[in-house]
């Protein structure tokens, strides 16, 4: 099958006719909207997660990694068969994909790439804050971030007082002790510490009995969903999934890349469950440092590449679609002759998402979060504005 480059820009035909009827923004302005970012560390293979259908180049170069029984999304793309929860969202018009996209980083180091996917910059380690933190600062969302991790991830830096949740295996001290510390902190004008102790004391009451919670992403996501649902709860959450760096035994449906994709899929499921109807006012996006080579290597794995894909979910999506400016997979169409190219700066997607969820003009985000870099405003194409 041959796909021309511009084919997908218009969105999928079935819902296209609805797109003209945009209602004024008013109705949305006072609603609490949530943004969730799932960081996929190690280099998520967009072509394994969302393979192209019927491309001879692809089939030839990846003989041993082609998946059986993929789920057909449209005439051109399929979905990894283990992504059942995402497929479920897709069927309910709550899932979409941006393909052949990545942050503008081409050097293939995890180390530098993960730094850049979080800072949104061009030079590794040059920027000490995260794009999400800077966006939240612009939106004045102090205290509205929740990281499902122990250290505060770089992506959220740039705005103080974020919360995090990554349950300790040990039991918290009794509530009176926490209250005592809180009052000591307050007396000594340690306001940040007092605020945190307040959060902790509330947590200890919720979790009385002290059964330690699991740190599995699926249970963290359930918790996060319940928190995001609250009207005075956090508005931003960040997850991390490791293990996408599959140089060997990447395999087919049951390979090692599948394990990490399944973990990502479990986050979608639990978030949906926790959020309930608030999934309607939520946007969930994935983020990775790079994709992987098209060609399989000697160990039936893949090497570090460039273009990848972004999974998106939630009711703030405009429609179910695979949005792409597909570059093709012929040798000369590949980046440096080996990787899927990136034709959409992934930061355009994230900037548009922040614009939609935080109700801030795209141009302001472009200017103040991404230094005026050349980014496309994709809000109308991808999200409900």
């Amino acid at each position, binding site marked *: 099958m041959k796909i021309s480059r511009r084919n997908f820009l218009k969105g999928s035909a079935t819902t296209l006719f609805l797109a003209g009827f945009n209602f004024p923004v008013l109705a949305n302005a006072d609603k609490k909207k949530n943004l969730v970012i799932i960081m996929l560390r190690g280099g998520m293979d967009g072509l394994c997660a969302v393979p192209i259908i019927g491309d001879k180049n692809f089939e030839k170069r990846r003989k041993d990694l082609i998946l059986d029984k993929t789920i057909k999304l449209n005439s051109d793309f399929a979905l990894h068969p283990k992504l059942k929860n995402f497929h479920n969202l897709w069927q309910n018009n709550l899932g979409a994909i941006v393909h052949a996209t990545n942050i503008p980083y081409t050097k293939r180091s995890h180390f530098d790439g993960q730094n850049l996917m979080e800072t949104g910059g061009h030079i590794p*380690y040059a920027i000490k804050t995260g794009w999400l933190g800077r966006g939240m600062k612009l939106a004045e969302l102090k205290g509205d971030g929740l*990281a499902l991790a122990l*250290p505060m991830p770089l992506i959220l830096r740039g705005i103080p007082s*974020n919360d995090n949740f990554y349950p300790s295996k040990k039991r*918290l001290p009794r509530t009176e002790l926490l209250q005592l*510390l809180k009052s000591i902190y307050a007396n000594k004008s340690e306001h940040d510490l007092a605020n945190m102790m307040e959060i902790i004391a509330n947590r200890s009451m919720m979790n009385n009995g002290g059964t330690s919670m699991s740190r599995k992403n699926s249970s963290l996501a359930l918790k996060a969903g319940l928190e995001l649902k609250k009207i005075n709860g956090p508005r931003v959450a960040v997850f991390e999934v490791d293990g996408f760096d599959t140089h060997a035994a990447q*395999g087919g449906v049951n390979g090692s890349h599948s394990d990490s994709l399944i973990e990502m899929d479990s986050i979608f499921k639990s978030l949906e469950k926790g959020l309930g109807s608030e999934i309607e006012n939520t946007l969930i996006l994935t983020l990775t440092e790079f994709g992987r080579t098209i060609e399989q290597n*000697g*160990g039936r794995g893949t090497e570090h590449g460039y273009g990848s894909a972004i999974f998106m979910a939630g009711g703030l999506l405009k429609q179910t679609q695979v949005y792409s400016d597909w570059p093709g997979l012929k040798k000369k169409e590949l980046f440096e002759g080996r990787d899927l190219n990136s034709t959409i700066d992934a930061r355009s997607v994230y900037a548009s998402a922040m614009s939609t969820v935080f109700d801030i003009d795209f141009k302001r985000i472009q200017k103040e979060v991404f230094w005026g870099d050349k980014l496309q405003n994709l809000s109308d194409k991808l999200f409900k504005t």
Partner: protein
Amino acid sequence: MKNFYRKVAFGLGPDEKVPSDPLEWANNQLNNVPEFSWKGKILPEKELRGYYREWVYGDRKVLRKKFKNDKDGYKREKNKLRHATGQKFWWNLELCIRYSEALKSQNPVLAKLWYFWGNHFAISEKDFLAQYTTGAYQREIIRANMNQNFEKMAQEATKGWSMIHHLDNEQNIGPKSQSAKWAREKGKKRGVNENHARELLELHTVSPNCGYSQEDVIQMAYIMSGWRPEWGKKRLETGDVHFDPNAHQPGSKIVLGKKYKSGRKGLSNAITDLVNHPSCREFIAMKLCRYLITDNPTKEMMEPIIKAWEKSDGFLPEIHKAAIEVAFHYSDQYNKFQNPENWLLQMSKMADVDLIPSPAFMDLYKIGNKPIRDQRALEYLMDELGQHPYLAKQPNGWSDISEDWMSPELLIRRLVYAREAYYKKSGNSQTKEFYEEMIEKNYDNPGEILKIIGQHRELVHKHVILFNLPETLRS
């Protein structure tokens, strides 16, 4: 003033007397680098790098090929290889060595500064460096040079295998070099990797305050091109670092207006100039003050340290003494929020917590076996506290800004591990009298503190409160 002992070290332990002259007490610890107080096995970096080589080679060249269709088999064999190369053990041993210096040596002030320098020339989380070689690098290149000039430490850290590999200098190849030409003939592209050069300028010496340009970074990368591990089919990237003239960019280079001839000597000469640049001493003086005193050091704090540097030509013992004196001078006005590692060590020292497994117990470990759970206690603990010293996320090391250590989960860890630590204390330190004496010795407001913890009857609760009071969290 008593918080000085906690500020520049880890407080005073139960067997230690309050020194009559605090400054003399601290300064006397800074002239020499004594032997390690850890009495168990200590392996040289080179031997540990050998284990790392076996791991990398075995995984990359053998197992990945052998088990290309067998995910579970690959996992199983990889786990065997981990134990065959001591992957789960060495860093625990290194943590024992590291923490003995804080808790059991005669020079805790030197230890606190050792942690500073290890973090300044950080080897952050990459591959499996932390599990094999980072601890040894911090012993052999950082601590061993703490009675030398800063330049010597900078020269050795920059050309050490750990840093060269960590910052990708092995991939830094002059685009006009012989190696790049050969690669081009084979249709491959080779060029500079400016990572290490940039960090040498930004993080290790002059800092962006000196105003270098992107062109300076590239020129520095040209100077550094060719400094790489000696490659071998079995050694892979784990060989000793040497200068490979074939990968070196020919022609002279200019960094910060100064010209450097092509060749091996360029890097040493450039480092000499960088460490003698005024921005370098200003930057390091600022960082020392930030580590010991406050997030926002003033000019007045930095000045005596810069002066000591100039007077002694960058002699570290003199720089350290100046920094300690400034810390002493400001100890009543400023309290620094302690990172989790320093907080843990402070608690362990003052409250006599049995933190470190014994040398005899650690030496029971046999290569090839899975370490016993208790032999891995420190690794788990540091991970739980959120600051494993060998797993900083970025080359700029762990943050020394207070805000970065404040999050609800990180605070929860201090609550629950204070409690855990209490149960690791010897029986005779679990008395009210013990705490009264310890508080008297280590805090400036013992009366107030005793009153606060007096509100709880059980000793374990008193302990948890004490080590989470602002007076302890900050020192």
